[in-house]
């Protein structure tokens, strides 16, 4: 506790402020309550069709691959197609996400689906995104009972299903949605914003994909979603 009081005391002394100063407290409470949005780039402020197109285009720019399907029921087939095209074994790891669970995985006969957090040997992980951000081609995923964070990072290939209707123009819309889902001032343990597959430029500034996270990020955008 002494460190706390000492630091806060020094901060107040340097600022020439008193802790019980009503005007300062009001200003802080006001900002926390209002959460002003600031400058929102025009880039993502588009109608639904253009917004989804921008999302796909921006995701492609950061080296994610994108497949658009019509409905939820098409997702398992799209997963199998991706695995085949990359010569990957027909096994995927996913959490207990209800939206994924409701999909007809039995249609993809050769595919083995296992559930739970990812381990070191899982090659392909499948997640359902909470949202997308068109401005930068970014995915938002959050942890929870049904959504292990390890699935986003351990497998070499990460397949993420995004409902077209969940694609927002900007980050701020997603933050608002987070406040609605979890309550204002509350967050899940982890909220991941993911923009492309992992990379490093640490050796001679040469940019390489596949550092410690997934080497490849494949998005399946469900148009009717």
């Amino acid at each position, binding site marked *: 506790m002494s460190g706390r009081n000492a630091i*806060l005391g020094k901060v107040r002394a*340097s600022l020439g402020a008193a802790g019980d100063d009503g005007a300062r407290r009001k200003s802080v409470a006001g900002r*926390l309550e209002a*959460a002003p949005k600031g400058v929102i780039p025009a880039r993502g402020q588009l109608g639904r069709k253009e917004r989804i197109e921008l999302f796909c285009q921006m995701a492609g720019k950061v080296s994610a691959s994108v497949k658009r399907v019509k409905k939820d029921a098409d997702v398992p087939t799209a997963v199998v197609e991706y695995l085949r095209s990359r010569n990957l074994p027909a096994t995927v790891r996913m959490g207990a996400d209800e939206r994924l669970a409701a999909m007809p995985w039995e249609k993809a006969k050769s595919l083995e689906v296992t559930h739970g957090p990812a381990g070191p040997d899982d090659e392909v992980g499948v997640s359902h995104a909470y949202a997308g951000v068109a401005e930068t081609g970014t995915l938002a995923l959050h942890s929870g009972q049904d959504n292990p964070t390890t699935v986003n990072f351990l497998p070499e290939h990460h397949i993420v299903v995004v409902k077209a209707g969940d694609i927002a123009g900007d980050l701020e819309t997603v933050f608002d949605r987070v406040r609605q889902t979890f309550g204002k001032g509350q967050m899940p343990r*982890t909220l991941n*914003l993911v923009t492309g597959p992992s990379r490093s430029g*640490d*050796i001679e500034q040469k940019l390489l994909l596949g550092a*410690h996270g997934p080497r490849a990020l494949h998005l399946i955008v469900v148009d009717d979603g």
Partner: protein
Amino acid sequence: MQITSPSFKKNARGALSDVQLQKALGNVRLGFIDKRIKAVDALPEFDALRDSARDIKDHALAHLDLYLESYEEKVTAAGGKVHWAETAEDARKAILEICRAAGARTVTKGKSMITEEIGLNDFFVENGIRPVETDLGEYIIQLRGEHPSHIIAPAVHLNKEQVEEDFRRVHTHLPEGRDLTEPETLLAEARRVLREEYFAADVGITGANFLVAETGTSVIVTNEGNGDLTQTLPKVHIVVASIEKIVPTLDDVGQILRVLARSATGQDMSVYTTFSTGPRRQDDPDGPEEYHVILLDNGRSSMLGSEFQDMLRCIRCGACMNHCPVYHAVGGHAYGWVYPGPMGAVLTPSLIGVDKSGHLPNASTFCGRCEAVCPMHIPLPRMMRHWREREFSRRLNPATQRYGLRAWAWFARHPRLYQLVTSFAIPGLSLLAGRRGRFGYLPFAGGWTRHRDLPAPESRTFMQQWRNRETLKQGGRT
């Protein structure tokens, strides 16, 4: 880490004649500048966002005590614990205590400059704990027993052949004949080796790019994904962050994120921006069981309210050093402590004292590129000037320099004499330099001419040229 800032001049001389380093520094000059400008040009709102980012930090700093209180309350409510550390030593002690309680033998680390600042790795080793850096660049320099030479590209001073040598020296369990000639194979090997470390670690330590008062969240921004594995797999996650990382709300993070990656690497967004709040929830299938935040002051509270307060807006993007001709010439290690380049030239004297680091704010041409590219509008040259003034008024610079300055000041205050002498000296120097217009060698200026030419003055003084111009103008009018 040992501070070598007092011998900056010697460090710089060594750096200038280091062939490997000079080759590697070419990557800074080529890589970062173009990428940044492309990303900035593609976003019409970039300058408006810079202003917005600056205003957010100014507001947060002016109310720092209150935001820190709100932040702590939220962390606690989410099941985490905040540890307040006035000094580096307090921080190290608090971290060690948490690690001891967890029975930790191996600690993985995401990239964090603040743990460099508190010398955490050496401290761990002294206390029988094995720290493992997991960012590729940090891992490489840890193998070499070095420190980062750049705040976002820690191994930018190295070439791939050097990395190959280190990997062969350390990874002796791997076959000798393996191919490590390209960055691709080096990266793949580091990935494989570090995978095992993530699972072996008892505690994972990350820094923080932001602490969010609204939610009690710490945010890290990375490209590799190592920070996420570091904080997800072990049973304890420790965040080490300094007090000025506070921003009020999630939306404020959004504003600053838009200028951060563009200024740093020229990306619109870094690959992973991760918001962490508390330990894993009751039904979560993975994530750490404990979540601790070490809130470090270490001299920052004294910068508030001073002429150096604006420095606390810094978001550690590295743009200032990427655009600095001095950094380009000598690299980061010459600066002699944790923070190099223009931001280091301002921050280092604040944190370790200008008596030890007075050379740093002097190692600037005041070209102003650092301020021009700083996403947070930090007036870096002006603050370096403040340090020079303090250094002078505390009589910290050498007597020859002080007398020289005094002599020049006297001279400059006697304009007739000044003009008379320069009206001979300038044309004289110009004549001596001949057609080349530069000096490869000048007596008393060896420190300058050893590594570069000294440009010779124009054939006449400024005053002479100005008078000429005015005469011509008047002649033209009549």
